[in-house]
């Protein structure tokens, strides 16, 4: 599998482009993080890759085949998408929600194999206890993991994550980043992820693409992209890096009596 993106442009109107000519590629065994301030075009890029949005111009190809020529079902078997966490109106049991991920393979009847795949994925994620719970009654972290499970049962080559950890506590953040890392290292899949947490991006990515106003500011290895100069340029924030972690000025003071 190789995803190649060439001079991708997108605008809601013709005049104002949100994404201004982005090129990159993704191979199996790579975790690529898209980083940048709010409104820099990260989510838009992910949605273009997935044909949720139609690019204004440019080319996206999967193994040399233009995605425009692929059917929706074909796309869904190769690319899975985990949307930005929202408390979406999804009813039904966890099984029902995860089973949706088998839609690209199911014609009408759910086969034994489909049920087994769903249960195996839930077990891998140690979520099998939740199989018959109602999705709406789960915690935020659990919901996010169930949506990842739904992507996993699609058995795709490429995963797209849109801010998978933004609303989660530290434990769930690490769980999900480890999960993504596992998909890359053990299953040799590709992951493209929109992240806000620079430290998480630094620790878990193979490649980082730093965006500013819809254009690439810097791209490459995390340590070469994520430095004080780039962060200052893109975010306008002063940082220090201590042992590979970004530190911003602190204000916490002891309160004196």
């Amino acid at each position, binding site marked *: 599998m190789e995803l190649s993106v060439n001079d991708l442009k997108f605008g809601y109107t013709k005049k104002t482009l949100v994404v201004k000519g982005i090129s990159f590629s993704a191979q199996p065994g790579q975790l690529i993080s898209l980083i940048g301030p709010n409104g820099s075009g990260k989510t838009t890029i992910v*949605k273009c890759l*997935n*044909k*949720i949005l139609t690019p204004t111009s440019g080319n996206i190809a999967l193994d040399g085949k233009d995605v425009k020529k692929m*059917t*929706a*079902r*074909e*796309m*869904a*078997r190769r*690319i*899975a*998408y985990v*949307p930005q966490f929202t408390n*979406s*109106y*999804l*009813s*039904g*049991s966890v*099984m*029902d*929600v995860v089973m*949706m*991920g088998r*839609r*690209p393979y*199911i014609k*009408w009847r*759910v086969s*034994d194999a489909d*049920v*087994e795949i769903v*249960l*195996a994925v*839930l*077990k891998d994620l140690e979520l*099998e206890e939740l*199989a*018959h719970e109602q999705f*709406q009654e789960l915690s935020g972290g659990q919901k996010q993991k169930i949506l990842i499970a739904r992507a996993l049962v*699609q058995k795709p080559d490429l995963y*797209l994550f849109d801010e998978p950890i933004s609303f989660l506590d530290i434990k769930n953040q690490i769980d999900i980043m480890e999960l993504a890392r596992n998909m890359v290292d053990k299953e040799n899949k590709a992951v493209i992820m929109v992240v806000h947490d620079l430290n998480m991006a630094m620790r878990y990515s193979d490649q980082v693409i730093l965006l500013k106003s819809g254009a690439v500011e810097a791209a490459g290895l995390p340590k070469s992209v994520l430095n004080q100069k780039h962060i200052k340029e893109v975010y306008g924030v002063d940082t220090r890096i201590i042992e590979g972690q970004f530190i911003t000025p602190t204000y916490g003071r002891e309160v004196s009596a």
Partner: protein
Amino acid sequence: MEQNIDQAKLNYMNKRSRKILFVLFLSIALVMTAVISITMGASSVDLQTVLQVIGDVFARNDAITDIQRDIVFKIRLPRIITAILVGMALSNAGLLMQGIFQNPLVSPYTLGVSNGAAFGASLAIIFGASFSFLNFGQFLIPVFAFGFAVLTMLMVYGVAKAASDSSSTLILAGVAIGYLFSALVSLVKYLSDVKDLPELVFWMMGSLSGVPMAGIIIMLVAITVTMILMMWFAWDLNIMSAGEETAISLGVDYKKIKMMSFGISTLLTAVAVAFTGVIGFIGLVAPHVTKMLIGNDFRYAVPGSALVGALLLLTADTIGRNIIAPTQLPVGIVTSMIGVPFFLYLIVRKRGK
């Protein structure tokens, strides 16, 4: 560990069988309710007589009078069939709308369709003579009601689309446009001749009696075709409820399914309203009862909600026909009596979450 998976799989399969059993159970319940309903009414035609009348079709039975024959075949049976069909149509329309718009409060009634149809009907009733050149005869009212029901849906969907499709806009648009049409109905009433008013008032309370044979056939065809479509696209519809982005990423042709759902829900609502007038809340209550009983999976919910809708409306109408017999309560009043408390309960529950 393997055992765990087997156990979970078994659970899943059991749930599936339970859903199928529920659908069968609902079918039996519907047949039984229909049998009970046909024996109940202002004139005493009991089960034995009904069976004799039906037997009379095959082998002539001289004990049967023409009046008994008419009560069964011309009054009760068509009315029961109408109740079943209209219940199915309104319920499935509601099920589809709630799924597509991801909003449990959406239904044919809450989107103002009934008011639009009522305006169409009022034009036909009050100014019928002016439209005689159309030569619609007894179909003048249904055609007008149907036309305005469709127009209302298009207006509501149009406004919601202009406001970027959010489902709360849809309800607000429905309420606003519903008010517009209800004001127009008042205007027509104000301008009309007193002698025409009873027919309009009666129409607006909803009635399952006197639907012509052609009307029953039209409803039957509409329900059959739309049910086949809804079953065929059941998986796509299941996934639509997860929202546009997820649906697309799972390989669903979102625009196509959405357009189809608009079409189906409009058609079902419009045919039901055209022949029977304003019957509120079935399209809201029945899908919810179905989901509580057999869940959201359209593969089971489509037949399930059709049956629940039929069962509820038939029961409501049987109650309406008999509770203060020989006077008959319009079925729209009965369904609203049951529906309004349920609607309020849904709002409270939704806010509570």
